[in-house]
């Protein structure tokens, strides 16, 4: 079974949005999106169980190589990094176009995503990519199994669990509750460099200008504002009666 895992290189620290460009400030150190580490782990577990290979796919600046390398050090077999000046500033649609083209060329049985990117928190890309690939998608997967050419995902919802089955090939977005990711071993770290890693441009993927990058992005950020300030806060110091006061406070508002 061939499994592709999409990983995003995200800024490690700030979530600052530059008011001038209305874009996320990506100047600091980057690291693999923590949610995507769960997708890598799940792919590795599937591979260990059933055999096959795991390919890491990422679109990002040259620095995204660090995130790709971490996934390889964890145990992925190969990597495809799409890096191109013309891809900078891509919005959801533009990013989905590129990833879909890359995934098309890899022809995996399963595509795994993290549930959301820790920087922009869209939590949508997997749906858009699945749509372009004409494949079923199961999101918020907290438990995953594969049998008889089908994949079954236990989906975490606000009200309980859905269990959804889909034919393979399929797209899955895993939740961070699905597993506890391994640390890359020193052997994995030392061996990562020698694994097949390709860096491709948009034209090498057969993508024309205009479908991605700023040119392909129809999203216009019109305005940015801080969230409204919270209502009056009541600070309760614990002098032994804090619990009572909290209950009183909630009762007054008919919350308990």
């Amino acid at each position: 079974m061939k499994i592709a895992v999409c990983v995003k290189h995200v800024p490690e620290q700030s979530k600052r949005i530059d008011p001038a460009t209305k874009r996320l400030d990506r100047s600091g150190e980057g690291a693999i999106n923590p949610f995507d580490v769960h997708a890598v782990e799940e792919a590795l577990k599937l591979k260990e169980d059933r055999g096959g290979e795991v390919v890491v796919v990422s679109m990002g600046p040259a620095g995204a190589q660090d995130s790709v390398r971490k996934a390889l050090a964890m145990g992925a077999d190969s990597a495809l990094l799409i890096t191109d000046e013309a891809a900078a500033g891509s919005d959801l649609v533009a990013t989905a176009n590129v990833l879909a083209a890359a995934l098309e060329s890899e022809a995996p049985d399963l595509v795994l995503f993290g549930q959301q990117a820790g920087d922009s928190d869209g939590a949508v890309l997997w749906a858009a990519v699945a749509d372009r690939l004409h494949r079923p998608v199961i999101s918020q997967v907290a438990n995953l199994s594969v049998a008889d050419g089908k994949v079954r995902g236990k989906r975490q919802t606000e009200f309980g669990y859905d269990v959804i089955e889909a034919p393979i090939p399929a797209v899955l977005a895993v939740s961070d509750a699905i597993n506890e990711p391994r640390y890359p071993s020193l052997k994995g770290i030392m061996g990562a460099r020698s694994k097949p890693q390709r860096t491709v441009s948009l034209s090498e993927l057969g993508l024309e200008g205009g479908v991605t990058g700023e040119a392909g992005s129809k999203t216009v950020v019109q305005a940015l504002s801080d969230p409204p300030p919270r209502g009056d806060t009541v600070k309760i110091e614990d002098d032994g009666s804090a619990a009572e006061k909290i209950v009183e406070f909630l009762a007054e508002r008919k919350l308990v």
Partner: protein
Amino acid sequence: MNLDLTEEQELLRSTVRDFARERIAPIAEELDREHRFPYDLVRELAELGLMGMTIPEDYGGAGADTVSYALAVEELTRVDSSVAITVAAHHSLGTLPIYYYGTEEQKREWIPQLASGEKLAAFGLTEPDAGSDAGAARTRAELCDGGWVVNGSKMFITNAGTAITACVTITAVTGDGEISNLIIPNGTPGYEIAPPMQKLGWRASDTRELAFRDVRVPEENLLGSRGQGFRQFLEILDGGRISVSAMGVGLAQGAYDLAAKYAQERQQFGKPIAKFQAVQFALADMATEIEAGRNMVIKAAWLKDQGRPFAKEAAMAKLYTGELSHRAANAALQIHGGYGFMDEFAISRLYRDQKILEIGEGTNEVQRMVIAKHLGL
């Protein structure tokens, strides 16, 4: 000239940093309080390949360089010295002598289980009456009927008495003015390991006094040839100083981390104490010295990786980082005020763990003697 770490070194450092923060930090205080050896952590570190870092893959290690090893030890010490010394003593003192001086047969017998971290090894040089003057060792080993018979004792030996310790390599007098190293497997009759010593710091690490009473081991347990023991242990200590100096940097960095965080949270006179210049200067001095110390450690490790002489630089790094960690732990605790004196504040543990860095693997004074010798004085 290139001062960048390699991609592998960077990734290793961030991996060990994550591991230390996520797996070690939450239990460090408890391990210290209970004086409990961290068996589970050792197993996890072994799985990551951190127990036999610089041993080649052929022998079950990870084949990393000394710079990587120093970075890993620094990151571990930043969070917990007991775990760091367990790794460093096992690797630099326990495993490397057998790897460097052992015959192919000895290496095949011992190294795979040690490099994989399945078992631990110790190095017994210090004796009750021979510390800085290690050449004054009195433990004797005599050849009779094709085996060595060992009598004597060793003091303060790290990792000697854990449930997974395989052996200790000891220095012994094997003839007139002749010192040699011998491998003594744990469980050999007559080899007695005293209960764990009670210590100011490194409380979760294993430190023992050892007694040898007519302990018999085969003649092949000699490491290298007879009379080489003195040269061997000097070389081992040269290398060991790199990891202990990495511990000095790690401890200072850990103390800095705690102090910087605390100074931004603690309010006095209506503002965070980090706003007071005296506190800022203390932190600035710490950060500066840490930068200098780290560069010394990396330089010594890099020289070793290049196959060049490194003993002088390693001794300098050990001396400097031992003393800088002392200043850093002291200043960081001072920034914590009275809270820093309380057990529940991690800085108190770092403060206690610091002192041994100026004593173990050669005291500050011994480092100065080694450096002076290298300066031709």
